[in-house]
């Protein structure tokens, strides 16, 4: 396993450690019903066949990976940097994406918090640009104060562009 400083080595700031739990609970909410469904299917449909137990084992393996391995990997690879004129958001483990938005190109900004975010003390910064591809850039897992701080910083740029 890699340690948390992986993202810092690339000159980016990590997000709140609490975000790992957000990811984990989200994975749990997604995979638990599937796991139950697979077990039920096993008992009801496959009892007398040689495939008995196969769906449960496969889904259990997948959900264990999704709940215990994937969140920390994704967390370690999530980082951002607020350059003087650019916002950089780096994320993704299997599908790595490194997005740069020039601050003068930002149309408007939201700070959103879902129930899970409130539980673990995180917030999402949502940046809208005029582009059709990638017109919404989300930076999740920020501390709420930090999110507002970045928002105010970006807003200054939007204003200065209008003047």
């Amino acid at each position, binding site marked *: 396993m890699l340690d948390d400083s992986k993202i810092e080595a690339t000159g980016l700031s990590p997000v709140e450690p609490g975000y790992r739990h957000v990811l984990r609970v989200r994975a749990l909410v997604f995979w638990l019903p599937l796991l139950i469904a697979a077990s039920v299917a096993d008992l009801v449909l496959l009892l007398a066949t040689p495939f008995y137990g196969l769906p449960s084992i496969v889904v259990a393996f997948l959900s264990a990976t999704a709940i215990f391995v994937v969140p920390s990997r994704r967390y370690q690879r999530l980082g951002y940097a607020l350059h*003087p*004129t650019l916002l950089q958001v780096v994320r993704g483990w299997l599908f*790595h994406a490194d997005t740069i938005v020039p601050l003068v190109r930002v149309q408007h900004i939201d700070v959103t918090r879902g129930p899970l975010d409130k539980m673990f003390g995180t917030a999402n910064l949502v940046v809208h640009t005029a582009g*059709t591809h990638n017109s919404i850039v989300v930076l999740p897992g920020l501390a709420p104060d930090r999110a507002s701080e970045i928002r105010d910083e970006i807003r200054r740029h939007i204003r200065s562009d209008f003047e």
Partner: protein
Amino acid sequence: MNEAAATLGPPERLHPIALLSSLAASARGMWGLFAAGGYFAIQGHWFLLLVTFGVYTVASLGSALIRWLKFSFRVGQREVRIDSGLFSRTHRSLPFDRIQDVTIEQNPLWRVLGLARVRFETGSSAGAGEDDGALAAITLQRAGEIRDLVRASRGLAPAATAAEAEAEEVAVFAMDLRRVLLAGVFNFSLAVLGALVGFTQTIGGPLGFDPFDMDFWAGLVAPGTPIGDFVMNNRATLYSAGAFVLLMVGLATGLLRTLLRDYGFRLDRTAIGLRRRRGLFTVTDVVLPGRRTQAAVIASGPVRSHYGWSELKLQSLAKEDGGKGAHVVAPLADDAEIAGVLGAISWQPPAAPQWQRVSLAYVWALAIGLSPLLLIIAGQALLFWYAAALLPNPVSGEIDGRFNTMVIVSGLILFALLATIALRWLAWRRYAYAFDGERLLVRSGWWQRRLKILPMRNIQSVDYLQSFIDRWFGTANLAFGVAGGGLTGHGIRALPSETARQVREQLLSRFR
């Protein structure tokens, strides 16, 4: 409020003929009434029938009349105000600054009467595809005046009279009938077959007629029947006749569609941008502000490009009706004409750029992505072939035919997948990018050839994307956010990751 009212002109009404179009709209909702009428007629309640139709006619006439009476618009120096509605009044204000596009449309009746439908498009309509404001029927002259006002307020052209505005238009590109028909040939399409399938699925069933059902043909051409014997004896002729019919259907579809859409195509340069008029029955007249153009695409295909033809589309902040977004400003033009159109919005045609090729991972990534499917299909074909061979003889005679069909179908799918990969390789040989001054050029595709011209200042965001497959090859994809709809997928694929980072730096340097 008073101040604002003072700068607005007097309220104007739509031409009374607009009543007709709103009546036509309510007639479309009359099917329930017809059903009820039919029921009354059968039951012999003639009086009820008369009352129903009478009430409905009066009600729809009345509501159309009230709608017409309560609809008015006022044109000011800086905005158009549209007031409508009886109980829930709507006062819509369309500031000229926010109007991106003024479209003047004429259907055949409108043309006879010298009327036009005027639509104002503002940026906010981009997603919904709804008109922000439309004037259903006003005189063509008034429509032209309003458009000139909107244009003039842009600050580019002084408030020119309609005559002057006409005079300063310069013809940029036009297509004669021959060119339109030629474009139709290149728009070869078998879409009508798809429509036919859908039609017989819904209508053909009750009629007992479904040409896309095997049994329909099996019964018709069964050995022993006259048609069956004829088919067996003239197989080769019939196959070629079928292919010929398909060819003709495809050609006719393409010709008809293109003729309807592009008849009388002409493009003029005006003070504000490009003005496009086209259409056989429904003539559309669109002005594309030059400043709002975000990117350009020169599209072609192997055959078209062999004869030196291509199509020019512009991606603009102003959206095309129908939500397709990209505005076709030259459906079929040679290089010189395309250069002329680009020149008309002060864009240079690409000079002699230094093309940079991309990694062969462009092909491999697709092949790897398709490989699970390839394996499954190949395995399936083998399995059926093997199973057919294993079966004991008496049974196999019966089932063999079906197994053979499965093997053939699997083989065809396999061939299609391999052809996709082969096409991707051909596309890779053409795929390249280049910096052309302040612009990025990306050339792609073999069958669908595209040359995208993207001024760097129009880039809204840059994504550096790398999936685990790309990582094996050490490549990455760049994707750019560009405003305005229509041309998706701005980006460069399969760059070596180091190059990708350098290109990104170069694109973003203007923002540093």
